[in-house]
Each structure stands twice: as structure tokens, then as C-alpha cells.
């Protein structure tokens, strides 16, 4: 990646802080061990710690609904009182660094009124695709549509860096769900075996949920005690219920940022669950998530044309 982009990014962040447009910039930094980490900057002089390279996989939009990060007067939908009381105009205003895929999750948050866009400065970065630590392009980048390589102008406040028009080794996505169709084509017992093998490994660490930019519920259904919908004890049956419900709650919302799958310590191919849902939503309800901040989730809508072959 061009180092010029990093310098420009650092300057942009410093400017935003100096001019008091925002009082927090969420971006990427580097740990002393050399790992990319989320970075939270409040002082202009810290902006030089901002990084941007092909290991910047995290979807930082996740932190926009985390009250312990953005504070009570942050970009969240509530606490307008705290907001009004604050004399500091920058207080609670946040800038966030996003890639094209991350931006889609922000679009969903907007459509669900979870962020106050006017308090948020979105810094888009054209992305040539990100890689794992072994240098392999992430699977999500392989299915990234070219229009998402560059953050959509109208949705960002600022774009830093030259647009990416090369595929960067990425296969150009044909919009198919081939890997899902392969599973669909299996016998029921084979599918059961396939998924149960993965589910038996699940530790119920909830990293997939907690890392997800769209899992912002104040009280998650899995944390409810009464009724207890799914036992918190890991086990194939309880884990299957957990994964079904998790994916279901993201129906028509998941933008395939791939964070859940990346975070999963035991290698459960969570995108293959999310994309199955996306496939159904696309084919049956003709909807794609993350494109339109005004759009409503397909599950709060219906159409008289909805398929009902399965209904007697």
C-alpha cells in the first residue's frame, strides 16, 4: 500500500482533532509485537500512530455502538440530553476509518437509527483486499464486488488515498453463492454431519457476536435468563441453536464483513451460514443489505409476491 496514504490519513486525523471536528478518531494502529490493533486517538500528536496496510482486517464500525468506547455523548442514538449539556462542540463526535466492506455495515447501522450520522465523520479508504497473517487474501475479499473496492463517495465524508481499480489478485465476484450451493446440494445427513462437526468445536466464547458491528443489542437473547432460549453450556445441540439464531438475527442485515469468521478461534466457517441467509434473502425477498441507508430490513417487511411453495 502506498505510504502516501498513511501520511494523508494521519494528517486527516490530526486535522479533525485540531479543528475539533471530532474528539475521537478510531483507526488502525500497530502493537509492539507488530500486530495491527484498533487504535483510539484523542490527541492530534497521536495521529502519527495510525497505520494502514493489508493486515487491517478489523471492521471498526463495531466500536460505534460500544458505549464504553464512544461515551454517553457519542454517536449512539441515545443520551441526547448528555449531548445537549456538553459545551464542547466536539464532545462525543467521532471519526472512523472504514473500508468498502465496513462501510456497508455502517449503512445498516444508519438504516436502523443506531448512529447519528451528523456526529460521525467517516474516513473511507480504497482497499486492495486484506490478508491473513500468512499473506493469503481473505475469503471475503475474494467475493468482494468491485464496486466495494472503493468506499462509496456519498456515504463517506472523506476518502483518503487513490482509488483502487485493480482487482489486486481478487477474482471478480460473479454474484454467485457457489460455496453455499455446494452445501445445499449435499444430503441432509451430510449437511448435519458437516455442521455438527464444526458446532462441536464451538466454545461459546461469543467472539462472533461481540465482534459483529451489527450485534449491538443492549441485552442479547443469549444473555437472557428468563426465558433462557439457549443454554450457555457448549454442546452440539445448544451450539447449533446458538449459530442458527445468531445468523437469523443478521438476516437481511449481514453485509459479509467476515469479522465473525475471522474472530472464531476454532475455525467455524461462519460466513457460510451468513451467506446462506443472504442467499435466501436475495433470492426470495430480492434484498441486499448495506446498500441503502434508507432501506428497511426485509424481515420487517413483506410482499404479496413472497414465495410460499413450502406452505400447505
Amino acid at each position, binding site marked *: 500500500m502506498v505510504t502516501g496514504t498513511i501520511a494523508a490519513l494521519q494528517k486527516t486525523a490530526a486535522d479533525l482533532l485540531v479543528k475539533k471536528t471530532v474528539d475521537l478518531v478510531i483507526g488502525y494502529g500497530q*502493537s*509492539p*509485537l*507488530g*500486530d*495491527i*490493533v*484498533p487504535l*483510539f486517538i484523542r490527541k492530534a500528536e497521536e495521529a502519527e500512530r495510525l497505520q494502514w496496510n493489508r493486515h487491517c482486517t*478489523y471492521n471498526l464500525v*463495531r*466500536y460505534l455502538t460500544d458505549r*464504553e*468506547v464512544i461515551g454517553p455523548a457519542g454517536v449512539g442514538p441515545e443520551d441526547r440530553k448528555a449531548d445537549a449539556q456538553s459545551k464542547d462542540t466536539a464532545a462525543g463526535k467521532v471519526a472512523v476509518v472504514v473500508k468498502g466492506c465496513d462501510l456497508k455495515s455502517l449503512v445498516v447501522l444508519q438504516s436502523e437509527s443506531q448512529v447519528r450520522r451528523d456526529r460521525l465523520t467517516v474516513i473511507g479508504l480504497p482497499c486492495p483486499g486484506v490478508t491473513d*497473517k*500468512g499473506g493469503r487474501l481473505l475469503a471475503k475479499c475474494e467475493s468482494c464486488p468491485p464496486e466495494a473496492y472503493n468506499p462509496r463517495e456519498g456515504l463517506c465524508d472523506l476518502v483518503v488515498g487513490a482509488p483502487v481499480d485493480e482487482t489486486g489478485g481478487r477474482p471478480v465476484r460473479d454474484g454467485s453463492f457457489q460455496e453455499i450451493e455446494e452445501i445445499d446440494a449435499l444430503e441432509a445427513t451430510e449437511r448435519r454431519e458437516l455442521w455438527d462437526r464444526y458446532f462441536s*468445536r464451538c*466454545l*461459546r*466464547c*461469543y*467472539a462472533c*457476536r*461481540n*465482534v459483529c458491528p451489527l450485534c449491538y443489542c443492549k441485552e442479547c437473547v443469549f*444473555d437472557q*435468563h428468563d426465558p*433462557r432460549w439457549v*443454554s*450457555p*453450556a*457448549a*454442546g452440539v445441540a*445448544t451450539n447449533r441453536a446458538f449459530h442458527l439464531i445468531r445468523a437469523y438475527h443478521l438476516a437481511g442485515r449481514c453485509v459479509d464483513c467476515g*469479522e465473525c469468521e*475471522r*474472530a472464531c*478461534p*476454532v*475455525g467455524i466457517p461462519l460466513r457460510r451460514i451468513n451467506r446462506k441467509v443472504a442467499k435466501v434473502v436475495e433470492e426470495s425477498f430480492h434484498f441486499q443489505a448495506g446498500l441503502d441507508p434508507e432501506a428497511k430490513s426485509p424481515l420487517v417487511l413483506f410482499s404479496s409476491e413472497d414465495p410460499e411453495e413450502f406452505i400447505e
Partner: protein
Amino acid sequence: MRIVEQKVLAKLVQCCLADSEIIAPVESEGRLYFQLLDPEQGLVELVWPEVGDSAPPEDPLTVNSIKEFFFPRRQELYEQRPEGIIPRTAPIEQKRLLLFARPCETRALTILDRVFLGETQDDFYKSARQNTTVVGLHCLRPDRYCFCTSLGGGPFGTEGMDLSLTPIAGERFLVTPVSEKGEALLASLSGQEAGEAEQKALEILRNNAEAAIRRRIQLPEPKTMAEYFTSEYWKEVSRACIACGICSYLCPTCHCFDIVDEGYLRLRCWDTCSSDTFTRMAAGEDHRKQKHTRYRQRIYHKFSYFKENFDTHSCVGCGRCTRHCPVKIDIVEIVNGIGGLAAGGGKP
């Protein structure tokens, strides 16, 4: 110490399959996991350690630690039916062989022992410990996350093992008994007694491995820890934390759990202090509502409270928590940071 060929060891393991459960590293989609070997499949799945520089795995350690074979993540206790109580899990009577456990993890067993075999003994844990023979494997290629040497362990440590293996060239192992159980096992392994040359080779391997571990955790004085308890520092360092349970669940020494009901079945399952439901009481009170207080609890429990109660830190430096953290929160960096603050005269 004896030089044993891999095929001799393999034969022994094969024999054990008949009457024992074998727990060993198994590969799945590029990651290693400790698993019970499928007796039908035999040793096919078993991943043997590699020697030399040829294709080291990305992580030297398995994803999961061996703790789940002593303290299962889901343990059915009993059924409490209106008509009475029906026990579900009996202590382990089956002999078990745990293969290729790394020194950090076997050492972690000795730490868990202090909890589960202390004043009140956990009979399941006890039986699992008694019936398991631990065959440890020395680390030749620690990675950049390892820091066992600054916590009293080392890549050639033997604490918690019955038998230790050091892989050497030519698909052979240097085998050293550590306990009586290990002696007994070694008796059934034929091989040449190691001589001075092997002793020397072992020394070199050990020195190299120890030198490869560059990370050092610098534990602050208890007094310093106490002073910084209320510091804003904890908010800073835990900001990126997503409060998942990866660090606790992969940790070989974390032992917190929950007791829950599934219908009439009561069971024990892992739980984590990072979860916001961990200390929430029925009526909603919670003395650790904020994320940083929960992260702080994890650090203080490991490096202050546990030490005070059990005279050891509840950390062996395996590095799993950082290696697998989705946002790479670094426990070493954070602990060292307290000392750094104190040295710099930072305000507690």
C-alpha cells in the same frame, strides 16, 4: 534418558488404544486441536512433531489447551427430577494417555490442581488427573507470543509431566521419565540409552529454544498492582476489548465456571469474567458493569489474587490469549505497562 524411535512410540500408542483413551493434537483446516483420537481411525489423525526448519506450523500450540480433558467445557452433573436425583457424570475410570502436551500446559495442570484439589476436592478432576498419563513434548520453536520463561516455566520444562519427549532428527525422541508413571511407561519403550553426546545435544536445543523466547512479562510488586487498581490505565488498555471469552476459554489456567440447568439436567460449563453477565445478580445488581473492570479482574486474578491465595501466578505464558485475541489485546504489554507507569512516576 533413552533414545526412542518414533515408530516404537507409535507402536506403544497403538497398543494403548485398546484399553486407553488417547488425547493428542489433531489437525483440522490448518489448525491443531487437542482431541480424543478416534479408536477406529487409530493413529492416522495424530500429528507428530516436526524437527528442523521444515515447514513449522503457524502456531506451535494447539488452539485449545489440554484443560478441557480435566475440566470439561460442558460437564453434566446430575438430573434433578421432581422424583429424585439421578447422577450423570461419574469420575473417570478409563486410563488415558495425553500425548504431546507442551511444558506450559502441563505446568498449568499443576496450577489447576491448587484450585480443584485444594480444600474441597473436585472428584471428577481428581479422577481425570489420576488416570491420565501425561507425555509432554518440549518446544523447539516457540513463537513470538510465547513468554513462559518469565513465569517460571520454559520450553524444556517438565512440571506436570510423567514423561518428556524431545524430538530429534531422524524421527526419534529423547525420552526422559519425570514421574513413577513415566518410569513405568518408559520401561515399555525400547531404545538405546542416551549418552553424553545426546545430553549435550539436548542442552543446545534447550538453550536455543530458551533464547528464542524474547518476550518477558515483568510482574509489578503487589503493592504497585494495588496502587494502580483504580487507575484510568485500565480503561485505556481495555478499550478495544470486545469482551468475548476467547482469552479465558483458551487459557490453560482459567477455571471459572457456571452451573446451569437444561431442563432437569444440571451441568457445569465454562464461564468468563469478561462476560457482562458474570457477576450480574438476579435482581440486576452488578459490581462489574463496565468492561474495564472486568478486564482488570482478569489481570488481577491471575497476577495478584491467585498469587496471594495459591502462591503462584495463574498464567504460564503460553500466549494463547494474545495469539487468538480478535483485536490482539496483549496481556504482556498491559502488565508490563503497570510497571512502566510506576517507573515513570505515573499517577495511580
